[in-house]
């Protein structure tokens, strides 16, 4: 059985670590590393732990095709001296990453670090526009509770499970206000211990 404990929920140790998580300081190097290891057939121990040998060839091929496509875009851009790919893809993609990081942090950061699915994932109640563009994933606790429930039924599922969920927050700003508040308290209690 796969792990039931979300892995991406480490609580920031301070404001600097919070900022690093928001800008995706760990995300981009990890991304390049994953592409490199996949393309060069050198998976690390962690990747080997969840990629059975029978599928590694397929993953390697996919990553190689993906890299080849990116290389093609790069070469075409250089050849035609075009900034199209930068303007309409890469720069917006990089600018948008902190928004995704902030949303993703809201899913697990600061929730229980236990296998209890009712308390280790947060559902964020947000506006219909964001909910639509994020394919109902703000109902994240529901998504983790029953991954076989399709995205369009998560809202209906929320009505059933809401009374049992331990982490439901109204809006992403409230989530981050709470996380920042807890970092401040964490720092305060550390300072008191040192005194």
């Amino acid at each position, binding site marked *: 059985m796969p792990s039931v404990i979300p892995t991406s929920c480490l609580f920031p140790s301070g404001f600097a670590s919070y900022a690093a998580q928001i800008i995706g300081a760990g995300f981009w190097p990890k991304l390049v590393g994953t592409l490199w290891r996949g393309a060069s057939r050198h998976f690390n121990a962690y990747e080997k732990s969840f990629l059975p040998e029978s599928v590694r060839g397929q993953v390697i091929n996919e990553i190689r095709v993906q890299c080849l496509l990116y290389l093609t875009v790069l070469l075409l851009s250089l050849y035609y001296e075009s900034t199209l790919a930068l303007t309409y893809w890469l720069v917006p993609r990089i600018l948008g990453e902190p928004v995704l990081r902030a949303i993703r942090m809201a899913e697990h950061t600061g929730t229980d670090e236990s296998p209890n699915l009712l308390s280790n994932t947060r559902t964020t109640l947000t506006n219909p526009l964001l909910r639509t563009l994020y394919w109902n994933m703000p109902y994240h606790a529901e998504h983790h509770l*029953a991954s076989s429930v399709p995205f369009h039924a998560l809202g209906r599922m929320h009505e059933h*499970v809401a009374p049992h969920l331990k982490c439901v927050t109204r809006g992403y700003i409230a989530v981050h206000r709470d996380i920042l508040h807890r970092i401040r308290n964490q720092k305060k209690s550390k300072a008191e211990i040192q005194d």
Partner: protein
Amino acid sequence: MTDVSAARYAGIGGIGSQIWPLTGPEVVSRKVLKGLRARSNAPGFIHLAIHCLALLVTGSLVALTAGTLWLQVPAMLLYGTVIVLTFCASARMLTRHGIQDALDQLRCRLRHRDLDLSSLSLLQVSPRGPSYLHPACRA
């Protein structure tokens, strides 16, 4: 802690178990859950259309603001946000057999078992191997 013992530690029997909290009468009955699991392509197509429209609209804003940096950067932020939100565009979208079989050719079998629009993943600049850990992959 192994996965199974972690689940036991939390008092959860595991997927399909009688004491899995979701399938117990105390949270969601098996009958209700069965209803919630019903699949349909229509919402997937509607969401896909909305997402493409949002890409088009915000992308047009980037084009319209070209030459005025202080307007183009916020437009890019908006457009970039729509791009990164494709992150979940693969979550159980199109599911009926015929379409699913056809789209199986397009997607990585390791990820969500319904549909992963490869082109959206490419847009995301995101390799897909690690998503093997994602809960939707193992349904």
